[in-house]
């Protein structure tokens, strides 16, 4: 089973087409292994990006250096998945 310990999901808001193009280019950088949950559409609309823990620093540095605003939507993805699993197990027991 693949775990997602330390992975974060960032909610990113690009303010212009140039920043959107930059976000789209992130998808092509296979070494980062990022995963768009919500793809970048138009300026002002949020995009959600799951970033594996090893790529976090690189992605955040890139966003900050380009002045692209973001917030952390999910702090630690695995914690959320563990809670989900626990809830399922509880329901099954019931």
């Amino acid at each position: 089973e693949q775990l997602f310990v330390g992975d974060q999901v960032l909610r990113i808001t690009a303010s212009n087409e140039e920043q959107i193009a930059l976000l789209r280019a992130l998808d092509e950088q296979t070494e980062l292994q990022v995963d768009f949950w919500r793809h970048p559409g138009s300026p002002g609309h949020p995009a959600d990006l799951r970033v594996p823990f090893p790529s976090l620093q690189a992605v955040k540095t890139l966003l900050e250096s380009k002045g692209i605003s973001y917030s952390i939507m999910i702090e630690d993805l695995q914690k959320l998945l563990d809670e989900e699993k626990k809830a399922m197990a509880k329901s099954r027991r019931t």
Partner: protein
Amino acid sequence: ERSTSTFDFASYHTIDEIYSWMDTLVADHPDLVSKLQIGQSYENRSLYVLKFSTGGSNRSAIWLDTGIHSREWITQATGAWTANKIAEEYGQDPSVTAILDGMDIFLEIIANPDGFAYTHSSNRMWRKTRSINAGSHCVGVDPNRNWDAGFGGSGSSSNPCSETYRGPYAHSEREVKAIVDFILGHGNVKSVISIHSYSQMLLYPYGYKTAPAPDHQELNEVAKKAVSDLAAVYGTKYTYGSIVDTIYLADGTTIDWTYDNGVKYSFTFELRDTGCYGFILPSTQIIPTATETWAALLDIMVHVLEHPY
């Protein structure tokens, strides 16, 4: 003894649990609900569709599917709740009764069973099918880029490692081909509603081109009313519009194909987004999400019933 009343709709379930519950639903409503197998997945899982019908032969029909992107669990859960709701409300709710007295409803709750099973066993983040791609170590095709509607354009990826990989050719995925064959074979499907999550949108064609659909105005009106009635339940705000105007250019999507093949009332939902969880929506959100979605679904289905073509 099992019955539909012991199934916990407020919890997420595995494919085996959902398939087993489908049999129970059929057993509880034998005169209304039946289960059809429309094909098999890449890994040979059955592709099941629930048919809600009060009789007649080859009546006009509404198609609903949930969970074509396997990781969006809120959609499969909403599908199960919706199936139960349709069965329970027939004979009780005048709208549901009128719809089913005139039309059939088909509902595919797990449109991507291999992916769904994989999200439970190995990778909760899995979105695509599980077909092997020749010459690549990456597995799976995005089944919502695999339809023969603008297939291969820039609104999808040719890279098998991408989450929006379109596949080697249109309808290469068994899960997609099964629906294509079913809808074409049926010949009387008047509406297709494909349900995804998340981002709170109700969308209509086109996604693969910027030109408005010939029925743009009517579809827009239907969507406007549906999202308004949805919002009236819990205040959840949806945006609506064509895929290309509302999100981005997307080639090979389900509803573009259905629309291009004569299904006028083609819509796709993106369900609830709390802003905190993405598609990992806690199970406490299932019933509220399904309940508000029901209001919109009912609007669309009633419109389809009242506007035969």
